[in-house]
C-alpha cells in the first residue's frame, strides 16, 4: 500500500489496530492454555469439533456397554453357582439310584433311600426358586412368580407327607442385554430349560392326511414366530417348523398320520397359536379354545417329557414300591440325562463368561484408542501454546514500543 502523505491520526489509529489484534490473539491462546482445549466454539474448527463429538458419543456408549456386561456377568455368576450346586446334589441322587438298583438292598433300605431322595429334591427346589436382586431368577419373564410350585401329600408306602407334584409356573423367556453394538446376550436359562430332564414330546391323534391351510397363519414355538401360507399341507408345515430356529423337530406319524413335535434338547416347549390363528388347535396339538397359555396341550394328545423333579418323584416312588428294575433302568437313565443337561448348561454359561471377558478386553482397548484420538483432536499441546504465547507477547511489546516512538516527535518540539 503506497501512501505518500500520512495524516497524524493515521499512524496512531493503525498502530492501535495492530496492537489490538495482537491482544486478541494472545487472549485466544491464553484461553486455550487455561481450559486445556484447543477450541472454544465450533467456528474455530468445525471439522475437528464435530469429529470430537462423534468420539464423545462412542466413548459414552462403550461405558454403557461395560455397565451392561458387568450386570450380565453378576447374574451369570449366580446361575453358574446354582447349576454347580444342583449337579452336586444330583450326583448324590445318582449314587442312590445305583445303590437302589442293586439287588442286595432290601425294601427297608429302599424306603430309607426314598426319604433321602425326597429331601434332596427339596434342596434342589430351594436352588431352583432362588432370587436375584429381589426377584426370581429362573422363572423366565415371569419374575414375580415363583418358578416351581410344590404340592405335598400322602404317598403310597410313605410314613410322612412327601412331594406329590412339582409344577413349573414360569415361562421360557430369556432376558437379553446389549453387550456390544447391536448384539445381545442372555445369561439365565429359564427353569423350564435348566431343570428339565427329558426331551419334550407331543403326539397328536388327529389325522393330517387331508389337512390344508385355508389362510395365512402364524404360530409361536419357544418365542420364535413361524409363518405359514394358505394352501400348506401337513408336510409343508412340518418342513417350515424344522427349518425354523426353534429347538424342536416336527414329523408325521406314519401309522396315525398325527403330527409329532419333539424338542431337540431337554426343555419344556411353549406352543401357541398367535394372531387369531388356529393351526395347532386344528392339528390336535393344542386344546381348542386355548391358543396361548401355559400347559395348553390338547387333552387327546400324548405329552411326554418331564422335569428333574418328575424324574425324582418317579424314582422315589419306585424306591417306595421296591421296584429295583425301574430304579436302575428308566430312572437312572433319566437322572443321567438331567446331569448331562445341567452340564451342557454349565458349559454354555462358561462360554458366555469367555465371551464377556473378551468383550471387556476389546471394549477397553477401543475406549483407550478413542480417548487417545479425542485427546489429539481436542487437547491443546501445552508446549506449542506456551511458545506461541511467548512469541505473541514479544511481538506485542515490539508494536507497543514502535507506536510510542512514532507518536513522540512532531514539528511542535522544534518551534521556538
Amino acid at each position, binding site marked *: 500500500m503506497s501512501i505518500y502523505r500520512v495524516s497524524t491520526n493515521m499512524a496512531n489509529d493503525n498502530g492501535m489496530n495492530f496492537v489490538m489484534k495482537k491482544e486478541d490473539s494472545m487472549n485466544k491462546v491464553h484461553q486455550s492454555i487455561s481450559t486445556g482445549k484447543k477450541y472454544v466454539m465450533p467456528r474455530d474448527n468445525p471439522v475437528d469439533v464435530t469429529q470430537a463429538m462423534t468420539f464423545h458419543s462412542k466413548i*459414552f456408549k462403550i461405558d454403557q456397554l461395560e455397565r451392561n456386561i458387568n450386570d450380565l456377568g453378576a447374574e451369570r455368576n449366580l446361575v453358574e453357582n446354582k447349576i454347580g450346586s444342583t449337579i452336586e446334589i444330583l450326583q448324590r441322587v445318582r449314587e442312590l439310584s445305583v445303590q437302589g438298583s442293586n439287588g442286595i438292598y432290601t425294601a427297608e433300605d429302599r424306603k430309607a433311600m426314598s426319604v433321602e431322595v425326597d429331601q434332596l429334591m427339596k434342596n434342589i427346589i430351594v436352588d431352583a426358586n432362588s432370587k436375584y436382586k429381589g426377584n426370581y431368577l429362573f422363572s423366565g419373564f415371569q419374575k414375580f412368580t415363583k418358578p416351581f410350585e410344590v404340592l405335598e401329600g400322602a404317598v403310597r408306602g410313605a410314613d410322612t407327607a412327601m412331594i406329590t407334584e412339582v409344577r413349573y409356573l414360569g415361562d421360557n423367556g430369556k432376558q437379553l442385554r446389549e453387550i456390544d453394538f447391536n448384539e445381545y446376550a442372555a445369561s439365565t436359562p429359564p427353569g423350564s430349560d435348566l431343570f428339565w430332564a427329558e426331551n419334550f414330546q407331543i403326539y397328536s391323534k388327529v389325522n393330517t392326511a387331508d389337512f390344508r391351510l385355508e389362510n395365512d397363519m402364524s404360530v409361536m414355538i419357544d418365542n420364535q414366530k413361524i409363518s405359514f401360507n394358505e394352501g400348506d399341507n401337513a408336510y409343508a408345515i412340518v418342513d417350515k417348523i424344522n427349518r425354523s430356529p426353534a429347538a424342536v423337530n416336527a414329523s408325521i406319524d406314519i401309522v396315525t398320520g398325527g403330527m409329532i413335535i419333539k424338542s431337540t434338547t431337554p426343555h419344556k416347549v411353549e406352543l401357541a397359536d398367535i394372531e387369531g390363528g388356529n393351526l395347532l388347535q386344528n392339528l390336535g396339538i393344542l386344546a381348542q379354545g386355548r391358543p396361548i397359555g401355559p400347559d395348553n396341550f390338547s387333552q387327546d394328545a400324548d405329552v411326554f417329557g418331564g422335569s428333574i423333579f418328575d424324574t425324582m418323584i418317579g424314582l422315589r416312588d419306585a424306591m417306595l414300591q421296591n421296584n429295583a428294575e425301574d430304579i436302575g433302568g428308566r430312572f437312572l437313565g433319566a437322572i443321567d440325562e438331567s446331569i448331562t443337561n445341567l452340564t451342557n448348561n454349565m458349559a454354555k454359561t462358561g462360554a458366555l463368561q469367555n465371551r464377556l471377558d473378551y468383550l471387556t478386553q476389546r471394549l477397553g482397548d477401543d475406549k483407550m484408542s478413542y480417548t487417545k484420538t479425542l485427546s489429539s483432536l481436542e487437547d491443546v499441546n501445552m508446549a506449542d501454546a506456551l511458545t506461541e504465547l511467548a512469541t505473541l507477547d514479544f511481538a506485542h511489546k515490539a508494536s507497543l514500543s514502535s507506536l510510542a516512538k512514532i507518536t513522540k516527535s512532531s514539528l511542535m518540539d522544534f518551534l521556538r
Partner: protein
Amino acid sequence: MISTFHGLEMGKRSLASHQQAINTTGHNLNNMNTEGYSRQTVKLSTFEPLYVPGLARSETAGQIGQGTTVTSIDRVRDQFIDNRIISAGKDLGFFDMRNKYLQQMEMVYAEPSVYNDPSQYNTLRRAFDEFMSSWSDVANNPDDKAPRNVLVEKANILTNSVRHHFNQMTDIRNNVDIEIKNKVGELNEIASKIAKLNERILKSEAVGDHPNDLYDSRDVFIDKLSKMADIQISREDPDELILYIGGKMIVQGAESEKLNLTAQADNYGYSDVYWADGEKVAFRGGELGSLVDVRDTDLRMEQKKINSFAVNISDLVNEIHRDGFGLNETTGNDFFSTHPFTTDPTGNFDANRDGADDSTFIFKVTGANTLDGNDKLGIRGTMNVNNVEIDYYETDTLDRVVRRINESGAGVNAFLNPQGKLTVKADYYGDNQSPDFVIRRLEDNGLFLTGYAGILNQSGAEGGFNSNVVNETGTKLNAQSVWSIAPLTDPAQYMAIEKKIENDVSFIAVASGIDSDGDGIKDISNGIGDSQNALRISSLKDNKVMVGMSLSVSQYFENIVSDVGARGQKAENGFRVQETIMNNLENLRKSVSGVNLDEEFANLIKFQHGYNASAKFISEMDKMLETIITKL
C-alpha cells in the same frame, strides 16, 4: 497613474488574506481529532489586476498586480474514495451483524461440551445420549422400578434441553427484531438529518460559499447510513443529492422518506420493513439486510432443525412404546405427549381463517399392504411427493425406490415399518407455504402408491392427495391405510413426557408381547422379565432415522453443529476481510483529507512569514506616504 493608497490597500488585502489562511490552519489544527473532518485549504490567488482594456485605461505599463485575495476555502476530499467507502459500508455492516448474532447462535449449542468440561451436560447431544443409555439400564433390570425413575428423570432433562434450545433461539430472534426496530428508527433519523443538511448546504451554495463543515457533517451521516443498508448515491445533480436503498429514493435533496415497521402475523409478530407507499424494502446487504436474514433464515432454520429432532424422536419412541407392555401389562401408551395440529379427527383445518375448513394436515401415512424390500416392483410410473417427481421402473427393488424417495429432496422420510408396510413421514421445509411436518402432496400416475403400497385409492391427478384441499383423508387415502395428524407448530416448544408415565412408571413399556387375535395389535405381554421393547428403543440411537433415513441422530447433531460452525467461521472471516478493506480505504481517505500536524505547523510558519512580510510592506508604504505628506 495608480492611486496613492494603492500599496496600502494591497497590504491590507494581503494581511486579511494571510490572516484568513492562518485562521484556516488553526481551524485544521483544532479539528485534528474531529470525526470525519477533512482539512481545509485556503486558495490564494491574485486580485483582479489593473487595468482592464477599456476607455478608462490609464497610460501606464500594465497590468499592475493588486495583491492577493482568498478566492475560496476548499476542503481536500477525494469523492472517488468516498464513493468506494459508501459502497464497502454495506458489506462491513452485513458481516458485522451476521458475525455478532451467529456467534450467539453457536453458543446456544454449547459445543464443544460447554468449553470441554465433560461433567457438564447441557448439550442436546449429551442429553439424548443419556436418555438412550437409561433405556439400556432399564433393559438390564426390567422388573425394577428404580431405573425407570431414572429414565423419567433423563427424559425430563432431554425435553427440557430441547425446549431450552428452542427458546434460546427464540430469544435471539427477539433480540434481532428489537435491533431491527432500533436500526430502522436510527435510519429514519439520519435520513431526515441528511435532508435538512442538504437544505442548508443548498442555501449556502446559492450565495457562492463552500459550506465545508456542513459537507463533512453530511458525509459522516452518509457513511453511517451506508453501513445500515445498501446505499447508492447520486451526485449528478449538484443541487440535489439523492440516496437510494434498493433502487428507491430514501433522500432526495431536502426531502427524506420514512421506513415503516409492520408486524407480520405469520412470522410470530416480527416486523418487516416497508416503504411509506406499502412496498416491502428489499435489502441487499447492510446491517438491516443481515439482521432480517439472520432472524428469518438462519435462526428459523435452526429452530426447524430442533423441531425435526423433537418430532422424530417423539414419533419413533412413541411408535415402539405403543407396541410394548408396561409393568402393569397395559399397552398402547405414548411415552412423549403429542399435540395434534387440529382436534378434528379427519385432519381438516381452516388455514386462511375464513370460517370454512380448507386444508388437510397429516404428518405421516402407512400403506395397507405388507411388502418385502427385496421384491422387484414389476410396475413403472412416476410419483409426485411434495411436488418432486420420482420415477420408478419394473426392475427396481422396493428398497431402491424407497431410497430414491429419501434422496429426492422431497422433504420426507420413507421406510418400511416392522410390519413391512410403506410409511411416508413429512419433515421440515425451507419455505413457509405450509406448516412443517405436513405432507403436501402425494400423487402417482402408476400403481406404486395405489395398488402396490396401499396408500392412495386412485392413480392419476384425480386421486392425488393435496394438503390444501379439505377432506382428503376420507376420499383420497386408502381405507386400510393408517395416518396421523400433523403436530402443532414448533413441537420443540412443548416436547414433554406423558403425565401418565411421570405419575406411574409402571406404564413404561419395557416388555414386548404377542398378537393373539390377529388384529395386528399386540395384546399379551411376554412378562415382566422381558426387556425387548426397551432394547428396541435404545437401538434408535445408532439407527439411521433422520433426514431421509440417511443420518443417525448423533450424525444429525454433528451436522447441525458443523453447519453452524462453518457459517460462523465464514461470517467471522468475512467480517475480518471487510474490516481490513474498510481500514485500507479509510487510510486512503485520511491520507488525502487527514490533518498532518507537521504540515499544518509548516503552513502556519509560512503564512506567518507572509503576514509579517505584508505587515513590513505596509510599514514601508507608510514611511513612503509620510515622506510625500510631510516632506514635500
